[in-house]
């Protein structure tokens, strides 16, 4: 809200500088975001929080200054003599729950015209455009006293009467009406909208906007001024349903001052008469549901206990008095009656804030709480383990050259279409957002891969030819059967490697698949996550010959592979056959296995006797995968085998078509003696024989 210091000073005699006033207001909770100088006046841009509708006016801000500086408030003139003649005009409230008070005055014989300069200038300083003297006065009083007013052209109100109610109240049945508002648009009104009616039709949406047909125009002579109180929830509903946010609805939905409305009405009539002439007629004030101030009790001791202060009783009552509270002291507590404009005062905590505010937050000392012994929270072992896992994971990938990205949690159907993920796939079980910013962001992610692919395309388009990325974020799966109807949220890890064939100083021809796989294996080994294995994957977006599902103890925890050339072809990447490796892991599944292994660490004694190694190369069918060789070797039952390593896989010269050579090394050791050469030789020959038999291979010599 914009407030003029010159105007404020009419209400409260504050001599302090504009800077000082702005500071005090900010420290009272009315944050002055900017100060603008216009013609020697200072205009404050004040951020009024939603709990303080009473501060959406000059008088409201002045009341705060009065409390802060201890200066008296002067009310603007609003006394006048009105004509007492018979009023041929009736007001009926049909719904006193939504409209507990409705007041109005008739002013006849006005001369509509431009407003005087002083009025125009004040409105413009506060950001309101001048329209004509009658409308300007209602806006002026809105700014001054904070109460929304509306002027109807009396000549357009049919049947000399006004009633207030919903369509059901008036017509006996709920219906959605169409209504022409004064901004010139016809709108459909919600069936529970509170409306102002004349004898025949609705003429205004209560507390939101008037109608075009009863608008004050250049030819208006007589007017009816409305000053009423409307239910905040009702106004807010109607305002939201019609999309109409006005100065009036903004104040009514936050809570107007039911007692102020009479003063506001008289002030309006007073100014209109002064500016536009005419005769003011007697007041109509229908007030079926009388306001009674609710009392709030506050424990004296609790005030100091919550604030950490030691305020004296007189100090507390002093602050409350300055804020307009009526204070009664009863047995160590205060029974307080807040002023009617403080609709935000509900309970003791609200009162405590008021005291702290006027005392000054800056004067409250900063004291660290007494230490709490013991470990906070519940048994966190599982949580801290998964934290440790995350830390290891992040560390491994960072050190292996992967840069962390954070993407929005959104995606669209088309992201899954691009990957060829079919309708039955669990990743199609997306949480859908009803009001997304863009259609392509209408769902929550079920996989992190689409975003990583976008990151790749973006970075490639900015000239990057080689980079590695990873992300740790949640994936959301709808359609579960949780009692709370919430989706399943799973922690995912995903990484991407992109590399074009570029010249490099040192030769390294390790296929990128193994670069990424190596980081994962190193991580699993370091965390003792076992037993893990890699089997061929059927992920639709990965290269079928260069992809694997990652299994731990036989169940899938993720996948790794080259992005399928079919998908690459759909992307805006011009490079010829770049290498793109992707992997995604479900961290929650991993952390279960990690939790088990982390608790099973037991020391094993170091060997005391030397080892012997033997190397052998076999020629086997090309299709035989190395993991099968290793599994076979491991399946051979002997206590003397300490470890098995593959050290060469070769195809080409000297090897028959359709075959390959696989070389392995076996380390032998006994725990209780030094092995004799013949013993090792013998065992190794047996194993080689076993391998030849099982692989139907040949010994390579």
């Amino acid at each position: 809200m914009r407030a003029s210091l010159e105007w404020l000073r009419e209400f409260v005699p504050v001599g302090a500088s504009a800077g000082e006033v702005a500071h005090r207001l900010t420290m009272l909770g009315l944050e002055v975001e900017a100060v603008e100088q216009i013609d020697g006046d200072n205009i404050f841009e004040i951020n009024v929080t939603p709990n303080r509708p009473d501060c959406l006016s000059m008088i409201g801000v002045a009341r705060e200054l009065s409390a802060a500086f201890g200066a008296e408030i002067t009310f603007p003139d609003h006394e006048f003599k009105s004509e007492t003649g018979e009023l041929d005009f009736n007001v009926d409230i049909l719904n006193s729950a939504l409209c507990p008070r409705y007041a109005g005055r008739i002013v006849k014989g006005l001369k509509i015209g431009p407003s005087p300069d002083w009025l125009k200038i004040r409105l413009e300083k506060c950001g309101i455009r001048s329209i004509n003297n009658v409308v300007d006065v209602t806006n002026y009083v809105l700014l001054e006293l904070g109460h929304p007013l509306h002027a109807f052209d009396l000549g357009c109100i049919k049947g000399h009467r006004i009633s207030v109610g919903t369509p059901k109240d008036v017509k006996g049945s709920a219906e959605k009406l169409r209504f022409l508002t004064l901004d010139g648009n016809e709108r459909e009104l919600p069936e529970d909208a509170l409306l102002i009616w004349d004898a025949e039709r609705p003429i205004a949406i209560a507390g939101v906007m008037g109608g075009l047909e009863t608008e004050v125009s250049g030819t208006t002579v007589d007017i009816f001024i409305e000053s009423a109180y409307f239910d905040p929830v009702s106004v807010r509903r109607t305002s939201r349903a019609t999309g109409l946010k006005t100065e009036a609805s903004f104040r009514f939905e936050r809570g107007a001052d039911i007692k102020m409305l009479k003063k506001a009405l008289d002030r309006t009539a007073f100014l209109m008469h002064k500016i536009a002439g005419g005769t003011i007629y007697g007041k109509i004030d229908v007030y079926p549901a009388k306001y009674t101030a609710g009392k709030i009790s506050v424990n004296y001791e609790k005030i100091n206990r919550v604030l950490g202060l030691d305020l004296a009783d007189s100090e507390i009552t002093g602050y409350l008095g300055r804020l307009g509270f009526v204070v009664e002291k009863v047995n160590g507590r205060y029974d307080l009656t807040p002023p009617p404009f403080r609709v935000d005062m509900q309970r003791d905590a609200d009162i405590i804030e008021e005291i702290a505010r006027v005392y000054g937050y800056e004067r409250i000392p900063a004291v660290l709480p007494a230490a709490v012994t013991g470990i906070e929270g519940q048994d966190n072992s599982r949580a801290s383990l998964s934290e440790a896992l995350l830390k290891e994971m992040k560390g491994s990938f960072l050190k292996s050259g992967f840069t962390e990205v954070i993407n929005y949690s959104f995606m669209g159907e088309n992201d899954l279409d691009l990957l060829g993920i079919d309708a039955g796939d669990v990743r199609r079980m997306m949480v859908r957002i009803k009001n997304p910013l863009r259609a392509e962001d209408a769902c929550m992610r079920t996989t992190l891969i689409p975003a990583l692919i976008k990151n790749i395309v973006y970075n490639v388009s900015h000239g990057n030819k080689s980079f590695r990325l990873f992300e740790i974020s949640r994936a959301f799966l709808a359609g579960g059967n949780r009692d709370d109807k919430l989706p399943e949220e799973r922690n995912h890890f995903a990484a991407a490697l992109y590399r074009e064939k570029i010249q490099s100083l040192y030769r390294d021809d390790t296929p990128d698949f193994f670069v990424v796989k190596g980081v994962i294996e190193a991580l699993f080994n370091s965390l003792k996550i076992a037993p893990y294995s890699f089997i061929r994957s059927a992920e639709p977006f990965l290269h079928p010959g260069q992809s694997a599902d990652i299994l731990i103890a036989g169940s899938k925890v993720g996948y790794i592979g080259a992005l399928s050339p079919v998908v690459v072809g759909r992307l805006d990447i011009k490079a010829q056959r770049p290498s793109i490796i992707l992997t995604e892991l479900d961290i929650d599944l991993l952390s279960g296995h990690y939790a088990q292994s982390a608790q099973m660490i037991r020391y094993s004694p170091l060997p005391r006797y030397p080892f012997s190694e033997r190397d052998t190369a076999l020629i086997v069918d090309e299709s035989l995968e190395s993991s099968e060789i290793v599994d076979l070797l491991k399946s051979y039952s002997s206590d003397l085998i300490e470890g098995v390593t593959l050290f060469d896989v070769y195809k080409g010269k000297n090897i028959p078509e359709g075959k390959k050579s696989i070389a392995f090394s076996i380390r032998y050791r006994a725990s209780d003696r030094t092995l004799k050469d013949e013993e090792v030789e013998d065992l190794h020959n047996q194993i080689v024989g076993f391998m030849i038999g099982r692989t139907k291979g040949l010994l390579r010599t």
Partner: protein
Amino acid sequence: MIEDLKQTFLNELGSATSAADLFQLRVNYLGKKGTVTAALKTLSSASPEDRPLLGKKINEVKQFIEAELDSREASLKSETLKKQLLADSIDITLPGKYTAFGREHPINKVLLEIVDIFVRMGFSVEQGPEVEQDYYNFEALNFPKEHPARDMQDTFFVSDDIVLRTHTSPVQVREMEKRKPPVRFIAPGKVYRCDADITHTPMFNQVEGLMVDKNITFSNLKGILEAFLHRMFGPGTPIRFRPSFFPFTEPSAEVDIGCILCGGSGCRVCKESGWLEILGAGMVNPAVFEFVGYDTEVYSGFAFGMGIERIAMLKYSIDDIRLFYENDIRFLGQF
């Protein structure tokens, strides 16, 4: 005669250049059929009185030749080695072979820094769902339906009762439902609001904090947050608490630090005010305690929340929040 032998040897040694030459010399002089060996054999034909002296001389020459050969061999070896090492030399100014380390995202870097400070103060770390029930995100935090305070947070809806959480505050309610005081934790995480411009992204990160026990005061809130802010932004950083409004805290405060860019004299970033808004905080509203069944006469507590993006932008002088989510590695590589 034996003197001549020595001189001849020295001449020949002078022209020897390789290990092979030296070996040949050794054979020629000291080998079985070598000159020195032959001279020794002549001893038996020398007269008995000349024999000792002659023997001594020949032995001296033999030792001399041996020593010379050894020394020449050693120096030749070391010269050869030197040559070989020189030939093996590499351009040590070429770059090493490595995979450059990846970089942690600046948001997570700042987030972990914040988490670390609170963990050192004894706060545990908790999590809550990002797709959240209206009840936890609003209702139990004292934002009734149709309350204007809901306008403070533009909300993404999944259904009438399910939203993308607009703040990390629902974790407060979930944790208090789970356990009794004392409670002391922080809850970092992603939050969502339907808003996108130069200072807003539809997703961003917050850290929430809650401490509840007997006798926890507003003064304690100031104590904890001052300790945190002084660690985060430097010990001398000016701090200002001013009244504000959040439905779930009362009294509520906005916490500002003296502008770290202009030092408080006023600049574009602090909108000439000299202060930067950094945190929202307050004493837990008793209405929230009632939702979770805590006795409002026995317990009190404070809560606070901060946006990570804003802190990261200030820390690294970043002027466009969207950079964080473009994930351009030229940007990410700078942290």
